[in-house]
């Protein structure tokens, strides 16, 4: 990210005490005119992909051209992902919080002029509520945001993540200051225990208990102890951790520093997948800046406590997110898991006591220390406290990053925050927990989204991926997709996973061609159990979950494939036929023009027809037809 802030910044000067940090923060707050306009451009991955860089350049140009007219020269700032990626590129005018969506470079001039002349927002760029049709000028009033509770994401979208001063002004490192001045290391552990925080990386292990376990192991084995951040995020469709690392890297760092203080660790590791270059860049900048201010490294804030971190780039293998594989990967060996009969808190990285936590877990720690474990435990539900960030993708209107308190009903997230399925039909199911999770059908839409309820429903929280499926998604196809993914990602060390996943996928391949029997279904279930019981690590051990969950809720759809030779969702190509309903067809010819095979014929204004033998079942005609005349069956 380019350094966009044009505010005058003090030269970095080492802070030698907590008081100096407080003074710096006060200076930063005093130097800022709260009424000064700020043009905030979202520089998250989604908005960058839809052209945020060009928008920012155009805004700068327009600002320059308008220089004469603008009374208070507004600042341009770039931030991490605001979460509402499907509406990008996003531009927000602060301090009022005017929300512009789908901004293009051509809009830059109008945006700047509106500001210069105090003319009110540019109407055409405002968000329009699809339900009421009314425009909503302010970000905070948009249902997508209004119904969220953004704690972990609280600074993302308002701070420039490459500028530590911006973070400090926004309250960064206040929790560290508090811990260093008023808490013994053990109290930090106790506070995390009290908060009820559970790991956000997948299994939901209580973080405080993990830290306590490490303290016990240290009693036996002594130090060094390591703290490690798991930023390998490999679930397809998941991007929460990426956005946190990109948008508020200091939150992750501060969490790790607090953890290190609690455990007496001197070295930490941030394991980030190499496919996240921006996250790595922002973390590197954050580490540099924190070091130069004395918030990281030797003698942090003059307290005598020293801790430093380094970044390890993950090689991009999904299995390297598994704790023991992650350790061997950091140690420079092939990332293969080992049995975990001895826990990582006792024998982790380099055989030493180690605390490994997920990105979002670490980012929660400063919140807990600053506001207290009791405060945190009051958010969410009793056994799943706090909030959870989800990446909401699939057949849903509002694709993006959402943060809600634990325990909110699934349907609320999809229908209220996510705006439901395009076209307004109910969703069919929601896949949670990625390739290790399962799906929750529409009938169970009131299921509270917390660790235990999702598990009881046959799925899991996982790292927070949420893929919405509608009637055009086939459960056999979905189960095949995840199995194929894991088959590719299996490290190959243990036999059940290396060979068993392929076999399961082969059976599903047969199903998708209408081949298979009741006996195959039984085989599949017994093989799934053998893999669950037999695989070495949780990659293999949880690989059967998407299959088992879809079987549990959609057994009929499986039977439709193997007994009825039909794919009710119209996805499995070998089992479907496309047809044009002559009564509905207006003869507009669009489908005939779009068909890549030239399989559609008919005269203008007369019903068209599909030549079944030439049709490759790509579905383009179905999407093209505006009259709903194309049918799949």
């Amino acid at each position: 990210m380019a350094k966009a802030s044009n505010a005058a910044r003090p030269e970095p000067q080492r802070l030698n005490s907590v008081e100096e940090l407080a003074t710096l923060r006060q200076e930063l707050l005093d130097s800022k005119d709260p009424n000064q306009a700020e043009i905030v451009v979202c520089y998250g991955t989604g908005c960058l992909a839809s052209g945020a860089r060009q928008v920012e350049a155009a805004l700068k140009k327009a600002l320059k051209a308008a220089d004469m007219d603008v009374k208070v020269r507004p600042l341009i700032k770039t931030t991490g992902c605001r979460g509402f990626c499907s509406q990008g590129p996003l531009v927000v005018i602060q301090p009022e919080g005017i929300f512009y969506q789908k901004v293009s470079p051509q809009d830059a001039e109008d945006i700047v002029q509106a500001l210069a002349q105090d003319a009110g927002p540019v109407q055409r760029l405002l968000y329009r509520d699809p339900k009421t049709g009314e425009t909503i000028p302010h970000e905070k009033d948009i249902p997508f945001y209004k119904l969220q509770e953004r704690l972990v994401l609280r600074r993302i979208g308002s701070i420039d993540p490459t500028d530590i001063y911006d973070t400090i002004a926004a309250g960064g490192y206040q929790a560290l200051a508090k811990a260093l001045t008023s808490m013994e290391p053990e109290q930090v552990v106790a506070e995390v225990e009290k908060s009820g925080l559970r790991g956000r990386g997948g299994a939901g292990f209580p973080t405080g208990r993990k830290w306590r376990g490490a303290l016990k192991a240290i009693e036996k084995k002594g130090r060094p102890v390591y703290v490690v951040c798991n930023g390998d995020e490999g679930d397809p469709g998941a991007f929460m951790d990426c956005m946190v690392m990109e948008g508020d890297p200091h939150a992750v760092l501060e969490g790790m520093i607090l953890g290190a203080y609690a455990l007496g660790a001197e070295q930490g590791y941030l394991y980030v997948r190499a496919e996240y270059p921006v996250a790595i860049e922002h973390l590197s900048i954050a580490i540099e800046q924190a070091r130069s201010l004395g918030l990281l490294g030797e003698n942090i804030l003059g307290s005598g406590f020293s801790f430093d971190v380094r970044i390890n780039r993950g090689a991009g293998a999904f299995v390297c997110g598994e704790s023991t594989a992650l350790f061997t990967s950091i140690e420079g060996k092939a990332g293969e898991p080992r049995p975990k009969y001895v826990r990582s808190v006792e024998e982790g990285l380099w055989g030493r006591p180690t605390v490994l936590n997920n990105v979002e877990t670490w980012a929660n720690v400063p919140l807990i220390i600053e506001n207290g474990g009791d405060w945190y435990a009051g958010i969410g539900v009793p056994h799943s406290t706090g909030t959870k960030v989800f990446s909401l993708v699939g057949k849903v209107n509002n694709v993006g990053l959402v943060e809600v308190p634990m325990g909110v009903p699934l349907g609320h997230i999809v229908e209220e925050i996510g705006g439901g399925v395009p076209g307004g039909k109910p969703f069919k199911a929601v896949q949670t927990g990625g390739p290790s999770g399962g799906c929750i059908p529409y009938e169970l839409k009131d299921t509270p989204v917390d660790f235990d309820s999702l598990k009881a429903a046959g799925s899991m929280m996982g790292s927070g991926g949420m893929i919405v499926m509608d009637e055009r998604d086939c459960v056999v196809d979905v189960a095949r997709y995840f199995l194929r993914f894991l088959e590719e990602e299996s490290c190959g060390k243990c036999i059940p996973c290396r060979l068993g996943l392929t076999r399961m996928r082969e059976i599903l391949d047969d199903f998708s061609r209408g081949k298979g029997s009741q006996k195959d279904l039984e085989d599949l279930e017994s093989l799934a159990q053998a893999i669950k019981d037999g695989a070495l690590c949780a990659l293999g051990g949880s690989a059967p979950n998407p299959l088992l969950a879809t079987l549990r809720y959609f057994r009929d759809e499986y039977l439709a494939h193997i007994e009825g030779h039909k794919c009710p969702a119209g996805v499995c190509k070998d089992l479907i036929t496309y047809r044009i309903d002559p009564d509905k067809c207006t003869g507009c010819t669009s489908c005939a023009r779009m068909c890549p095979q030239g399989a559609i014929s008919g005269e203008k204004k007369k019903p068209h027809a599909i030549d079944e033998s030439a049709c490759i079942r790509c579905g383009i005609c179905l999407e093209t037809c505006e009259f709903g005349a194309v049918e799949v069956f």
Partner: protein
Amino acid sequence: MVEFEIDGQKVQAQEGWTVLETARKYGIHIPTLCYHEAVKPSGACRLCVVELREGDWSKVVISCMYPVAEGLKVFTDSERVKNVRRWILEMLLAECPASEEIRQLAAQYGVTSTRFAIHDPDQDCILCGLCVRVCAEVVGANAISTVGRGVHKQIGAPYLEPGSDCVACGSCVTVCPTGAMRRRLDAVRGKPKVELAR
């Protein structure tokens, strides 16, 4: 001394032993493929699974690495154990159709045919990694390694280039449970013509 039960039989073990070590001391048979006293266990083949039970709770673990603990109740032949074992043997029949040793072992457990597709009728390596471990841990030569990941994993000289690290001690051939290493040694040491290890 740690006391626990295997298949209802009271057994005693030293602190730090594994369930498998204890079972062997009592002559209780548990099949293994990737385990060898000479090297560290790795937990790759999963054939040595046993079930632990405590009231309603039950869990399948591998005996070659699971540390003994007071009061464990271990079952070596429960339905869950048999299910895992049968499927693994079926997988192995398909993966290594050329290994007589695997065929005999499978037959012992009543597995004589496989539902898995056979991709290479000449294959006999089960990728247990014993050869690699013995070469590294006992011989110290590091002449062999696993190459590739997942279904593409193979055993061979590093980067599949025959090298000069092999000291021709034959330890790998001795520990190999399927006889596969015998055919592969030349590929490690660098005689031409012989096909590289898979």
